[in-house]
């Protein structure tokens, strides 16, 4: 009896302890998380900052001084290259460890290790797309170059020395919530992070859809509705720019390039406007100071902790300020004493699918060049929290991984991946992007800029440039395969060598322009060139509206200052509305509208075409035009079992403006014959009715900001850790390209001159800790369209900077 009582008295506390110290499903280990000695309370940072700290880190070669300014931005002063990157690793980990760790685990397909079985399809996808394979190749490239090797090893050592200094109490809060621990950083993780950028920016693929469309409608319809050059365009390299090189011969397409490939069955999806960005540089002829001004705002999925981490790196031969990616050494977008640079994405077609004919179900050999060739296999071991590890076998042809042999169910990322196809993707190639940034950070002039770009592979970017010598330039830069026209627009036959990538466009022949007569250069992800460029980069780029607005404004700009550029970055004027409203407004039959629709109509008619926060017309217009697009195309391009996409917005505009009687207008699913006017009227009523259903009677709640609901969520979507809803304007098609949670992830304006003056802001803060006041302190400034003056310090004691804390790292 008493033995039992004694036993019960021991068992109860043990059971309770176990229950409160263990993660069940998504519930964090309760008391491990809530206790104030090692749980989340320890992550509450004091509002006051220690003004002077000293630490000893044996791995440094010499002393390093780090000054943190009033926004917690580190300014690192080191005496050699090793120490500067070591310190960058150390401070980045100090502020962003969990983010770096989580993003690289994501890239490597290792999320199941943390969250268990529910992430298994995601992990398989990452691995089957060859993310780890590509990162390993890329790392090889980085390690071959002594400079980038030193950079990456020092950065890694800095991160690890920070990790080793942590106790349970000091771990970032997300580790406590998800109940895991940081592991040592490795150079491979730097490569994985850069691959993930390629995945975000250059993983899009429409060739599966395009193949289906060609099969259903034929080549002529494809030529008509999916043309190789848009109806309206304003290319990055100004029309008329001469190509001063002798182009390489372009490979010939196979005779049966139009051969039809088989398809699988998945749902239709409307193409979302991709991730875009703006950058431009204006020459001294157009500025008040007589020196160039450069601006850049890369648009990405916004998150907290912020995507970017601001930093200044100072060492002999180096003084560079800008934003870095947590997980990669160096400054990615920024400036130094002499030059400034920025990037936007080039939608180059550097990802192709090849249909593979396997000999049998073992997938051991495939047909290529009239013989059977062996595949190689790569085993991907996926560790899963709370269950047994899974081994996933991926077959590789000479093109690359065969992504899926069976379609995973209910996994949206797999939608545009054709079954049994091999993937050829630039991100699988050996590369060394770090070297580009190493050289740009130290660059002094135009020649240094051009040299730096030659090392860059992917994701291809429009590198804009300005220097104190009054040079401005822009280059659509990356390693571009030498393709025959439209190679990779459709799925290709993997057995024909003529379909392989057969060479590269020489880096020196990438589209570029220096000091054009119009005195500015710009890009907004639109076509790189006009149709005279001798090589094929892609058949479709982002729509031209943002670029057009940028170029319109820059053309008339004189005596520009940083402020005129700043207001331009938050311009919300819609070129799309300007193009299309004069054609569709007259089609609306006012007599058939109800009271709400009538009021909506008068608002849209009087609208100034700005996507401003308080504009009701913007909400109506946005829904209206999307619905028109749906009305025109959905009847033909939405077929069960045949995944296709709609023609572009550009093609839709062309149809409305020039072919209102086109056969595509009629809804083939009804017996009546619809006219464009019918579709436009239905769409207008639909737009007003849905707004009314969702937001009640027409009024304040219909305003664009309320409809758009912009916010910056937490990276792992943890509720409470994101931003509040931001009542601000902007839209995907405007320069200020802010949608719900995708938009300008960093806004920078640099005035070149004797001392360069930088201005910048990102929607978040330097710290990744939700318990720090530096977690989201810059959001309001960003939302208001303002910029901070950036402190470009000349020495650690430079009095021009507002320094709130100093950290001295000594060797002993």
């Amino acid at each position, binding site marked *: 009896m*008493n*033995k039992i*009582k*004694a036993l*019960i*008295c*021991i068992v*109860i*506390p043990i059971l*309770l*302890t176990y229950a*409160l*110290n263990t993660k069940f499903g998504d519930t964090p280990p*309760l*008391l*491990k998380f*809530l*206790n*104030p*000695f*090692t*749980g*989340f*309370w*320890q*992550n*509450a*940072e*004091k*509002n*006051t900052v220690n003004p002077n700290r000293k630490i000893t880190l044996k791995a440094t070669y010499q002393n390093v001084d780090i000054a943190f300014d009033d926004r917690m931005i580190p300014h690192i002063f080191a005496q050699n290259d090793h120490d500067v990157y070591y310190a960058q690793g150390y401070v980045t980990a100090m502020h962003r460890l969990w983010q770096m760790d989580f993003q690289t685990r994501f890239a490597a397909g290792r999320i199941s290790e943390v969250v268990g079985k529910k992430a298994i399809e995601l992990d398989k996808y990452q691995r089957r797309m060859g993310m780890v394979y590509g990162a390993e190749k890329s790392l090889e490239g980085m390690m071959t170059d002594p400079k980038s090797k030193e950079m990456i090893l020092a950065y890694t050592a800095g991160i690890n020395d920070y990790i080793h200094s942590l106790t*349970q109490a000091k771990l970032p*809060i997300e580790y406590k919530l998800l109940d895991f621990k940081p592991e040592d950083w490795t150079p491979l993780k730097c490569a994985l992070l850069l691959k993930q950028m390629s995945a975000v920016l250059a993983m899009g693929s429409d060739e599966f859809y395009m193949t289906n469309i060609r099969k259903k409608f034929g080549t002529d319809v494809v030529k008509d509705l999916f043309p190789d050059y848009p109806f309206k365009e304003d290319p990055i390299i100004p029309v008329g720019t001469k190509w001063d090189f002798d182009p390489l011969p372009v490979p010939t397409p196979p005779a049966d390039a139009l051969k039809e490939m088989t398809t699988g069955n998945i749902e239709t999806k409307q193409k979302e406007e991709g991730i875009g960005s703006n950058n431009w540089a204006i020459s001294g002829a157009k500025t008040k100071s007589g020196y160039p001004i450069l601006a850049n705002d890369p648009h990405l999925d916004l998150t907290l902790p912020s995507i970017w981490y601001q930093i200044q790196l100072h060492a002999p031969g180096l003084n560079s300020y800008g934003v870095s990616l947590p997980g990669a050494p160096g400054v990615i977008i920024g400036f130094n004493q002499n030059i400034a640079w920025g990037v936007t994405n080039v939608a180059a077609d550097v990802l192709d699918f090849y249909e593979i004919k396997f000999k049998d179900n073992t997938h051991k050999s495939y047909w290529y060049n009239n013989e059977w060739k062996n595949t190689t296999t790569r085993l991907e071991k996926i560790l899963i929290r709370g269950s047994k590890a899974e081994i996933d076998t991926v077959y590789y042809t000479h093109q690359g991984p065969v992504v899926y042999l069976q379609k995973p169910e209910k996994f949206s990322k797999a939608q545009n991946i054709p079954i049994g196809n091999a993937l050829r993707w630039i991100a699988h190639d050996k590369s060394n992007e770090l070297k580009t940034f190493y050289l740009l950070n130290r660059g002094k002039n135009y020649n240094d800029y051009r040299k730096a770009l030659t090392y860059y592979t992917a994701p291809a970017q429009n590198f804009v440039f300005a220097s104190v010598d009054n040079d401005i330039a822009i280059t659509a830069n990356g390693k571009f395969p030498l393709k025959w026209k439209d190679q990779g627009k459709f799925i290709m036959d993997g057995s024909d060598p003529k379909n392989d990538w057969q060479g590269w466009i020489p880096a020196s022949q990438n589209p570029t322009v220096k000091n054009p007569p119009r005195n500015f250069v710009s890009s907004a992800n639109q076509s790189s060139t006009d149709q005279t460029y001798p090589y094929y980069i892609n058949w479709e780029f982002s729509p031209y509206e943002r670029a057009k607005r940028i170029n319109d404004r820059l053309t008339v700009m004189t005596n520009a200052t940083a402020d005129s550029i700043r207001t331009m970055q938050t311009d919300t004027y819609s070129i799309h509305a300007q193009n299309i409203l004069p054609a569709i407004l007259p089609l609306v039959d006012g007599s058939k509208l109800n009271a709400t629709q009538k009021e909506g109509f008068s608002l849209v008619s009087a609208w100034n075409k700005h996507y401003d926060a308080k504009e009701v017309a913007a909400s109506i217009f946005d829904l209206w035009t999307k619905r028109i697009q749906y009305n025109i195309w959905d009847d033909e391009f939405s077929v069960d079992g045949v995944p296709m996409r709609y023609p572009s917005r550009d093609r839709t505009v062309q149809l409305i403006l020039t072919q209102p009687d086109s056969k595509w207008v009629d809804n083939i699913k009804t017996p009546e014959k619809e006219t464009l006017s019918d579709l436009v009227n239905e769409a207008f009523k639909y737009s007003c009715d849905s707004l009314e259903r969702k937001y009640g009677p027409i009024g304040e709640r219909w305003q664009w900001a309320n409809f758009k609901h912009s916010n910056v969520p937490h990276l792992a979507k*943890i*509720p*409470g*850790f994101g931003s509040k809803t931001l009542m601000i304007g902007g839209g995907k098609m405007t320069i200020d390209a802010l949608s719900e949670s995708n938009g300008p992830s960093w806004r920078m304006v640099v005035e070149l001159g004797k001392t360069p003056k930088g201005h910048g802001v990102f929607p978040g803060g330097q710290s990744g800790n*939700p*318990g*720090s*006041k530096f977690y989201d302190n810059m959001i309001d400034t960003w939302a208001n369209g303002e910029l901070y003056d950036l402190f470009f310090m000349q020495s650690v004691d430079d009095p021009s900077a507002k320094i709130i804390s100093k950290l001295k790292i000594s060797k002993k």
Partner: protein
Amino acid sequence: MVFIVILIASYLLQMVLPWWIIVVISFATCGLIGKTGKISLWSPFFAILLLWTGMALFKSLPNNNVLALRVAGMLGVSSWILVLALSAMLGAFIAGVSGFCGYHFRKAVLTKKTNS
């Protein structure tokens, strides 16, 4: 006495050991010097309630409760005070139960001895 011992021991040992050391401390203290069941339940309970509330406030107040508010948002409650109450009450509860179990463990073991 039990209260003071648990308070001090829990404070010091939690600096270096995981939170569940309070379970061991409460159990052992009440097992050794717990006079009655009632004392063995409530002394650890209030010791940990006080200690954890104090420590949480010590970290949270200089932070203007920014983090506690975010965690409240995550848990779907309106006030950070509720997060504080939940943390401290859960800790106090498990300490109280452990103390109570410690006391009765001694009773069980002692009666066993007298019986045999």
